[in-house]
């Protein structure tokens, strides 16, 4: 035994030494970033998917405009100026002296090709489906660096939408997905070893400032514990989506509003949820302060509506429902007195692996409702099942349900949220309120102050008059950042990680 013991020790010592040297690779101006899952694709037209965007958006391929995460303002990127000619026509000036990584120049023609590809029905591009559904877009080249964009219906927020449009090189295959995207960004797409890593290298002919990071390696690990451990052990520099309990070191672990908002959608048409007192009671029964700092991070913001502050249309005057179990009981008692079957079983639909601690969250919610005297049954679903319940058509004879939902809107405008979620024709809406529909319809074609105000009124109606959901929190994500880097995650970090903004200490 003694002999093998010493052998073991030797091996261990050797291991320690060699790892020391191998972990030294996370040094210098190269960075390693660990994601929670591998992107399935890296095509520019899928850059709105958060896993794809974190790798290529603004790094490899750039967008025409950009949203300032702090103010929600539209900033220039590849487009330098824009103006509306008529409700359906916009004119853009493009940045000059911009080159794709393959050497071809960025100009009006290139943009036209890019748009055609983006809207190509043969590809299932998310940007098309998500932002340009039902729109036809005509791009005509006016000059080398000037184009005109015509749409079939008025699009008042086109500059905002352009912040989603990534521009790949004209050489990108028109009908196939590219696994080697070529863009104008500060980094070239160097290699993708499927399942293993993606490497980006700095592009020296970039039109803007030269970034500090020379190359970035993306890897992915499913377990939050492992991602956090990788930064702790120096194997990685930035780890995304760390669970609250793993974010133990305030020096390296930064929270950021990740644009997600969590709510329970109340199944308004179904007894007993059709009674407003019951819906109010559902709101009063939740101890948001108790959830905050325990299951949810201390940094989450109690929500009143489904868009984050800073979004056009966000109503800052709304107040969250206070935790008042007595009031909740009182409201239920009143309703019961009038014959509302408040003891009827209500299904709380959760989803497995939804967000960190989501399982605990729904269990806690269920406990709170039980305490208020409601009969709530927890049902965990798997994602496909969850989607089934999210979308119309809803099952006819369904049990009344509270549906755990999460929504993110990084476009800076409430329209992308409010129609789908609350309009009577919205695909995920259980509401059917003429007044609300009218507000939304009007807001969607309005611009400027009027647009903002109409959306704010709509949110007020949802929150106070209709009580269509139990708004929970504007969520935060945690990113663990190696101490040698200077990087502060922002609202946009969920969908992109601009390597150019990462500084090395």
């Amino acid at each position, binding site marked *: 035994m003694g002999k093998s013991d010493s052998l073991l020790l030797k091996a261990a010592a050797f291991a320690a030494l060699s790892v020391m040297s191998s972990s030294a690779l996370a040094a210098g101006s190269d960075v390693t970033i660990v994601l929670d899952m591998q992107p399935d694709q890296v095509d520019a037209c899928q850059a709105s998917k958060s896993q794809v965007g974190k790798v290529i958006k603004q790094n490899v391929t750039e967008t025409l405009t950009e949203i300032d995460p702090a103010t929600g303002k539209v900033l220039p990127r590849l487009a330098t100026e824009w103006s509306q000619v008529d409700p359906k026509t916009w004119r853009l000036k493009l940045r000059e002296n911009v080159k794709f990584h393959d050497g071809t120049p960025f100009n009006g023609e290139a943009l036209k090709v890019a748009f055609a590809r983006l809207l190509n029905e043969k590809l299932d591009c998310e940007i098309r489906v998500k932002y340009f559904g039902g729109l036809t877009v005509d791009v005509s080249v006016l000059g080398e660096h000037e184009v005109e964009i015509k749409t079939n219906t008025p699009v008042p927020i086109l500059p905002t939408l352009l912040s989603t449009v990534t521009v790949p090189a004209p050489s990108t295959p028109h009908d196939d997905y590219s696994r080697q995207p070529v863009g104008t960004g500060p980094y070239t797409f160097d290699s993708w070893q499927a399942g293993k890593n993606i490497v980006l290298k700095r592009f020296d002919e970039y039109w803007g400032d030269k970034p500090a990071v020379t190359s970035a390696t993306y890897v992915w690990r499913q377990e939050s*514990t492992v991602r956090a451990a990788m930064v702790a052990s120096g194997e990685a520099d930035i780890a995304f989506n760390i*669970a609250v309990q*793993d974010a133990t070191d305030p020096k390296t672990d930064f929270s950021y509003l990740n644009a997600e908002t969590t709510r329970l959608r109340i199944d308004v048409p179904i007894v007993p949820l059709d009674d407003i007192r019951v819906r109010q009671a559902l709101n009063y029964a939740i101890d948001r302060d108790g959830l905050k700092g325990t299951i949810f991070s201390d940094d989450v913001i109690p929500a009143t509506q489904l868009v984050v502050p800073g979004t056009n249309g966000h109503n800052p005057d709304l107040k969250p429902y206070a935790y008042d179990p007595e009031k909740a009981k009182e409201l239920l008692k009143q309703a019961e007195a009038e014959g509302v079957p408040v003891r009827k079983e209500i299904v709380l639909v959760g989803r497995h692996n939804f967000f960190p601690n989501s*399982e*605990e969250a729904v269990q806690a919610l269920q406990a709170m409702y039980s305490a208020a005297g409601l009969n709530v049954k927890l049902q965990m679903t798997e994602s496909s099942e969850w989607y089934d319940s999210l979308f119309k058509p809803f099952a006819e004879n369904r049990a009344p349900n509270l549906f755990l939902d999460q929504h993110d809107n990084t476009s800076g405008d409430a329209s992308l949220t409010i129609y789908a979620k609350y309009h009577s024709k919205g695909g995920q809406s259980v509401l059917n309120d003429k007044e609300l529909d009218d507000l939304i319809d009007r807001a969607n074609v309005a611009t400027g102050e009027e647009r903002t105000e109409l959306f704010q009124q709509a949110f007020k109606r949802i929150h106070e008059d209709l009580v269509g959901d139990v708004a929970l929190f504007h969520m935060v994500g945690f990113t663990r950042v190696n101490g040698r880097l200077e990087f502060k995650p922002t609202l946009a970090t969920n969908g992109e990680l601009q390597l150019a903004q990462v500084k090395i200490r």
Partner: protein
Amino acid sequence: MKLTNAFALLRRDKLAFVAAIYLVVVVVLAIIGPELFGKTATAINLRARNLPSFDLNQGWEYYLGSDSLGRSVLARIMVGARNTIGIAFGSVIASLCIGGAIGIVAGLSRGALGNIIVRSVDVIMSFPSLLLALIVLYVLGTDPVNIIVVLAITRLPVYIRTARAEVLEIRERAFVSAARVMGASGFHIAIRHIVPLVLPTLLIIAALDFAYVMLAESALSFLGMGVQPPDVTWGLMVAEGRAYINVAWWLSFWPGLAIMLTAIAANLLASWFRLAADPTLAAGRKLADAAHA
């Protein structure tokens, strides 16, 4: 008479005796645990999350600490025993009965049926069992009963193959011929002669499978298709607790230990059973062999 014999034999093997006592405790918990400790196990207290183990200040129920919702780990283990043991027992018994029956049919049939069964087993065997379970659960939903069904399906091949192999050997023995000479039907032979002889072997496999099934159930929880909260099993507790390993090791350690101990106990009992299953035959043969040697 046989029972007291078995008990005496059990007393003689100290390790097996301890294992048996442990299993009895677990089974008793599975029967009465939820009724006794159900309330404690589900009482959420967000202000008492992740209390460490071995602290008696909060009361005995928090001796093993509390989980991320402030529930007593000890109470949850005791309550979780029912689902854990229920699922493991249910699926092991189901696969034993069905697999054993199919295996016996396959062993006794001299025609195409036996061949088809063997080939079908090959098909199931070449489908990774965890994935098969996952897909079937996507179809059926994660009801505990469905989990029992799924785990039973994935373990079927073992029983079918073992039962068949045993039958192929037993059916050549002289007492089977003697029964056939007397005019016994295939069914009579299967029930009277084959089943009692195949059963001990299958039971030993079942004891070993007990651990396997608990682990598979846990792996399903890890992949998100195991038992769903608010139901609780040890496997689910380990899977949930893994997210807190850094800050609260006790969340996954204690249920993991419970699984491990149950597995070891089942193993010990299985090897004891191997000897005790057939005290008459084993002892008699040994005596005869020894005398002849």
